[in-house]
C-alpha cells in the first residue's frame, strides 16, 4: 500500500466509521427501548420519510442554502473589512470592541420578530440572521491575525520605508489568512443555524419552515429528515471550506498533515 493511499484511508475511514456507528446506535437503541416513533423516529424511518417527501424537501433545502450563502457572503465582506480595521488600529479596537461584544451577546433568535416587523416574513430576515450570527467570529479572527504581527517583522518592512498600507498588504493581510480560513469553517455552520432559526418563525419557505409545518402535522419523521438534510449540508460546506483552507494557507500547517 502506498504512503499516499494509507494517508487517504486514515483521513476517511475513522470519520465514516463514527458516523455509521452513531446511526447504528440510534437505530438499535430506539428498537431495543421501544421508543415511540412520535418521540424519536429511528434513522431508517427518517430516511424513508426523506425519500417519500424528496420533492418537497429539496426546493426548501435549496432555499435555505441560498439564504445561508448570501448571509455568509455578506458576513465575509463585512467581517474582513471590520476585522482588518480593528486589528490594524488599536484606537478603533478600543472604540468598537465593547459595542461589538454587546451586539454579539444579543441572542440572534430574539431578533427574528424585530426583523419581521421591519422587513416582513420571507427571505430577508433569514439572510440577516445568517449574516449576524456568522459575522462576529470572522471579524474577531481577522483582527487577531492582523494585530498579532511580530514587531520584528514590522521592523523589517519599516526599515525599508514601507507605508502603513504596505505593512498591511505585505504582512498583516497574508498573516491573517490562516485565522480567516479557520473562522470560515466555524462561521459557515453558524450561518446555517441562523437561517434555519429565522425560517422557523419568519418565513414561508426553507427547510426551517418545512419542519415547523411538519411538526404541526405531527409528521415527526419528516422533521428529522429535515434535520438530517441541514446537518448534511453543514458538513458538506464545512468540507468545502476545509479544503479551501488547505489550498490557500497550507504554509500555516507546515505542508504536513
Amino acid at each position: 500500500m502506498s504512503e499516499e493511499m494509507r494517508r487517504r484511508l486514515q483521513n476517511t475511514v475513522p470519520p465514516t466509521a463514527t458516523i455509521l456507528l452513531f446511526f447504528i446506535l440510534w437505530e438499535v437503541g430506539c428498537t431495543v427501548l421501544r421508543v415511540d416513533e412520535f418521540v424519536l423516529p429511528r434513522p431508517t424511518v427518517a430516511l424513508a420519510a426523506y425519500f417519500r417527501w424528496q420533492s418537497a424537501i429539496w426546493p426548501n433545502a435549496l432555499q435555505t442554502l441560498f439564504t445561508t450563502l448570501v448571509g455568509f457572503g455578506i458576513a465575509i465582506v463585512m467581517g474582513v473589512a471590520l476585522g482588518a480595521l480593528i486589528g490594524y488600529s488599536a484606537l478603533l479596537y478600543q472604540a468598537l470592541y465593547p459595542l461589538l461584544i454587546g451586539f454579539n451577546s444579543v441572542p440572534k433568535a430574539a431578533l427574528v420578530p424585530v426583523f419581521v416587523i421591519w422587513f416582513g416574513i420571507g427571505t430577508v430576515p433569514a439572510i440577516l440572521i445568517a449574516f449576524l450570527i456568522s459575522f462576529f467570529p470572522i471579524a474577531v479572527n481577522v483582527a487577531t491575525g492582523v494585530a498579532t504581527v511580530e514587531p520584528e517583522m514590522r521592523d523589517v518592512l519599516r526599515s525599508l520605508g514601507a507605508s502603513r498600507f504596505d505593512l498591511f498588504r505585505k504582512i498583516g493581510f497574508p498573516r491573517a489568512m490562516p485565522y480567516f480560513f479557520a473562522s470560515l469553517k466555524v462561521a459557515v455552520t453558524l450561518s446555517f443555524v441562523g437561517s434555519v432559526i429565522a425560517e422557523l418563525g419568519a418565513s414561508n419557505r426553507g427547510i426551517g419552515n418545512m419542519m415547523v409545518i411538519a411538526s404541526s402535522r405531527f409528521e415527526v419523521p419528516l422533521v428529522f429528515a429535515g434535520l438530517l438534510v441541514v446537518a448534511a449540508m453543514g458538513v458538506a460546506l464545512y468540507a468545502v471550506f476545509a479544503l479551501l483552507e488547505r489550498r490557500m494557507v497550507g504554509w500555516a500547517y507546515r505542508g504536513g498533515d
Partner: protein
Amino acid sequence: MELQNVSLNYFSGGKYVHALDDLSLSIRQGEFVAIAGPSGCGKTTILKLVAGLLPPTKGQVLIDGRPVKGPQKNVGMAFQNPILLPWRSALENVLLPLEIVQPHRQQFRDNRRAYEEQALRLLRTVGLEGFTDRPPYELSGGMQQRVSLCRALIHQPEILVLDEPFAALDAFTREELWGVLQALWMDRRCTVILVTHDLREAAFLASRVCVMSKRPGRLVHETLIDLPRPRSLENTFEPAFVNLVHRIYGHIGEVRV
C-alpha cells in the same frame, strides 16, 4: 555616518530607561564596525537609531551629512531571528525589499524576471542554489539566516545593520557564515554595523571593534583590527588574532564590574 552626542530615554514597563548617554561614533563609508558590550547596554538601540526606526532624545544621527528623520531606504537589516515570511518561498522573501523600496518598487512588475535573476544570483553566492523555491520552514536555521542576509542586501543598501545575526546558530554554521558575510562585504564594500556578543566574531569580521559600557550605554573603547583580508578560520588560531581577542576581552571585563 555619524552619531553626534546621542542620548536616548524611553519608558518601558512604567520605568524610565536611560538607554544611551551622550554617545558619539563616526563611521567611514565602507567601514565594517562591530559593537560589543554587556547585555542590555543599548547596542540594539544604536542600530534602530541608524535605521531611523527610533528618534534620539538628544543629539542627532547623520548619514552623508544629512540628519536621519525616519526610516532609511538605503539601509538593510538582519536580526538574530531570520524573520522570514512563512507564506513566501526563499526567493520571494529575498525579493520583498524590491517591492517596497523605490525605484525598484515602480519597476517591479515590468522587470520581475530581471529582479528574480538578481535574487537567484545572490542566493547562489551564499550557497542556497536548489533551495530557492522552498518555504522557510523547510530550511535549516543557517539556511534561513542566509536568506535573511540576502534580503538585507538585495536592494544594494549603502549601510548594512546586523543585530547578532549568528547568535542563534551552532558554532560550525556560525563560523561558516562569517566567511559568507566577509565575502559579501568584500564584494559590495558597503558600510556594516554588526552588534555581537561574540568577540571572536567581532575580531574576525570587523575593521574596528567598539566596546560599550553598561547602561546608560556609551563608547568606552575602540580597537582597530588591521589583520589582512580575506581572513580565514585558520587565522583565528594564530597568536596575533588570539592576542587581539584577549585584549578586547579585557576591556569588556572592565565595563562589566
